[in-house]
């Protein structure tokens, strides 16, 4: 206990001058505070699979190529340049020279080779490595000279260079193993359940325009806080400087109090959508399966939903009607020729009439006289989804469809949509972090597990699903981005026409940043608020940017 007190006292002595410097100078230095929403499960950058570890990897990891979260363009990192060849199988990097890891170990081409071998080691089960696995065989890494590395994959990898944004280079020789890093910060202290303290990496290679070493900040303290209400309260008290992701309700609360701290970067990558269960073996009546398989029925339901109202009422205007599987935030891959969804109850009824449905005394019936009624499930406790469903209930009642709403705890919901298929329709969401369509292969291929409306098909059930399979495979093996884009545009077109997922809204990327933080520029891509962490600095606000 005594040593703990001594450590705390020592930490205070160490930290305090940093804060004081930030207060007085408004220049470099200071400690940025914000919260992780869970315990980091690993500090090994190759094993990252959850948000907290991803935050630490982003702030500490040095990568060969960095995706600029604002321009969405690739920028040189540890590699000065790169070249993709052999139809996307090979990538050649030219490395920066004279760099050192945080512990002083020199950075060499061997480190890149070591990282790539570790990444692709099947024994490690690296989630990051999985995105590089395009075919059977070994990855070959050659070091032709001290400043270049050639990585050859057994099969073409679509969007190869973009994937390196997730690969933090490890040291092959450092005794500190993965704790020796090339990013702007390095892990200095970790107290489970309490915080992770990151200190500035004294050997970080990047400099600002004036030649000054980056990062400006001395340290970043990440407090582990699961409760979002407490996180918001701490922000309002000035105890933390930023909240990376806010929902609409919290955003509005903050905006009312202090408009300058709430930032809405516009439509994000996340989408909310609804789908009908088309699994042939699903345990509900055959006539309902026939409705759900009918394109006209799905399109009519889509047309009868007032998305503008969903955005305005449920998300307080901080969302946009979704056009398809890709958000407009994904500038390159978004198909801008897709038509905007129209709210048209009369048009929906015409479509339904064409498919043999008829409206009788306010009730929609199919050609056999069955009343059109179905149950939509969603996860319990998600207020915005419950509200969306309640609004959809009223929208569809206008065309005579009765919708029942059932909320289930998450494990029960997953059980129903992935194993028993005992549900009629479901409302869910997709948290998208990857811009490349390859990350959606497990959704669009008819044989995929996440082909949610009818998963794990032995052969495509419909012609348009066969087209989706063909186009997704074509885009993943195409050499040029132009060809890939053309193929994926067609995928988006088919999805918009067939509506297997009825896309509802794209939520905006919202964050809160204290006025004390200088240099912030929130982006729609994650991390929204600290993507340019090395350029952030603390201003002159005396109380950690307290909201007065």
């Amino acid at each position, binding site marked *: 206990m005594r040593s703990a007190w001594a450590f705390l006292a020592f930490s205070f002595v160490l930290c305090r001058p940093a804060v004081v410097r930030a207060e007085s100078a408004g220049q470099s230095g200071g400690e940025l505070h914000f919260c992780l929403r869970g315990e980091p499960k690993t500090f090994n950058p190759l094993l990252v699979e959850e948000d907290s570890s991803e935050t630490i990897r982003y702030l500490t990891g040095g990568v060969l190529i960095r995706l600029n979260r604002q321009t969405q363009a690739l920028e040189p990192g540890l590699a000065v340049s790169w070249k993709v060849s052999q139809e996307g199988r090979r990538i050649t990097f030219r490395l920066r020279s004279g760099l050192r890891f945080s512990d002083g170990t020199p950075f060499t081409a061997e480190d890149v080779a070591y990282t790539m071998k570790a990444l692709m080691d099947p024994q490690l089960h690296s989630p990051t490595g999985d995105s590089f696995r395009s075919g059977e065989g070994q990855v070959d890494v050659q070091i032709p000279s001290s400043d270049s590395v050639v990585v050859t994959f057994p099969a073409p990898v679509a969007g190869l260079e973009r994937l390196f944004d997730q690969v933090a280079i490890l040291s092959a020789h450092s005794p500190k193993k993965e704790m020796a890093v090339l990013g702007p910060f390095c892990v200095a202290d970790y107290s489970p359940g309490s915080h992770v303290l990151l200190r500035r990496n004294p050997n970080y290679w990047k400099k600002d325009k004036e030649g000054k070493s980056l990062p400006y900040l001395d340290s970043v303290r990440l407090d582990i806080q699961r409760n979002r209400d407490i996180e918001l309260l701490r922000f309002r008290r000035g105890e933390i400087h930023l909240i990376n992701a806010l929902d609409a309700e919290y955003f509005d609360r903050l905006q009312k109090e202090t408009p300058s701290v709430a930032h809405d970067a516009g439509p994000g990558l996340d989408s909310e959508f609804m789908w009908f269960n088309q699994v042939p073996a699903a345990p509900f009546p055959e006539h309902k399966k026939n409705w759900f398989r009918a394109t006209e029925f799905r399109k009519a339901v889509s047309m009868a939903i007032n998305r503008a109202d969903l955005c*305005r009422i449920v998300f307080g205007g901080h969302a946009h009607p979704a056009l398809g599987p890709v958000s407009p935030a994904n500038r390159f891959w978004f198909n801008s020729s897709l038509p905007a969804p129209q709210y048209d109850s009369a048009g929906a009824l015409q479509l339904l009439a064409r498919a043999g449905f008829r409206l009788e005394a306010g009730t929609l019936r199919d050609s056999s006289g069955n009343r059109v009624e179905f*149950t939509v*499930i969603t996860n319990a406790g998600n*207020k915005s989804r419950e509200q969306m469903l309640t*609004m959809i209930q*009223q929208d569809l009642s206008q065309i005579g469809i009765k919708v029942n*709403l059932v909320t289930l705890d998450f494990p029960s919901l997953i059980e129903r949509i992935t194993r028993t298929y005992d549900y009629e329709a479901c409302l869910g969401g997709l948290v998208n972090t990857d811009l490349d369509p390859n990350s959606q292969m497990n959704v669009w291929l008819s044989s995929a597990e996440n082909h949610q409306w009818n998963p794990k098909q032995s052969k495509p059930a419909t012609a348009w699903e066969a087209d989706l399979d063909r186009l997704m495979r074509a885009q993943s093996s195409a050499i040029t981005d132009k060809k890939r884009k053309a193929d994926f545009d067609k995928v988006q077109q088919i999805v918009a026409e067939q509506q297997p997922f009825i896309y509802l809204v794209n939520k905006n990327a919202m964050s809160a940043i204290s006025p004390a933080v200088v240099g912030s520029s929130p982006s729609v891509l994650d991390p929204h608020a600290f993507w340019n962490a090395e350029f952030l600095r603390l201003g002159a606000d005396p109380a950690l940017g307290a909201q007065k």
Partner: protein
Amino acid sequence: MSPLQKVAAIILCTIFVLMALAAILVPAPYARQFRDVPNAGPSAAHPLGTDALGRDSLSRLLYGTRVSLLLAPAAALLSTLIAAFLGSAAGFLGGWFERVILAVTDLSLALPWLFLLLTVRAMLPLDVPPMVSVIIAFLMMGLLGWQASVRVICAAARGVRDSDFLLLARSSGCKPARLLLRHVAPNLRPLFYAQFWISVPLFILTEANLSILGLGVMEPMPSWGNLLRGFEDFSALAANPWRLVPLILLVIAVMCFQLVLPSQEVTQ
């Protein structure tokens, strides 16, 4: 009847009349969404304002009162009857029967009911109409909410077991069943009433929690429970104090029920 009891009775009657005449009195159907005026304050069209989806709060309150004031007391009655039977019998008979009942009570108090309820919800078919789902939820609350009352009633029955009047009745040749029904139970009646009225608000709040788990009253049907869920947003509550009306009504109703009850002295 004291003047206070008369006032309480009048208030209760008024609430029940309003509840019964909800269909005539409400300004709009409880599920109808006036999407141009979400979160609106009180107005001539919407005397208690509107909720987040623009639904008339007065209509939802009156219909919600119907659901809660009929079903929460029904669940409370069921649980009190179970507790009264088990507790009085255990306390009166004593011995191994009492030990078994109390052991079962302790065991069921220790069970993670939340997970049991989640399992039950997962097993129920999805196409259950909202009203049936409401009845199932309250029935489950009634069947599962008796344990705490059993311990209290059992302790009181143990006290009555050794009383002089029971000794006299026993010596007069009264059978155990008659002793239990005619002598023990009437003496425990104030305790039954108390347990019943304690359970009513408890079940209303339990229903609110179950709604969050997908087991209570489902949208668009209102209940006091899901109206109280609006209190999750404290800042909105401070800005819109009229949203406190469901809570105020709950407090008034529970207080009035307890005032209208005959007191222990009067009953004895």
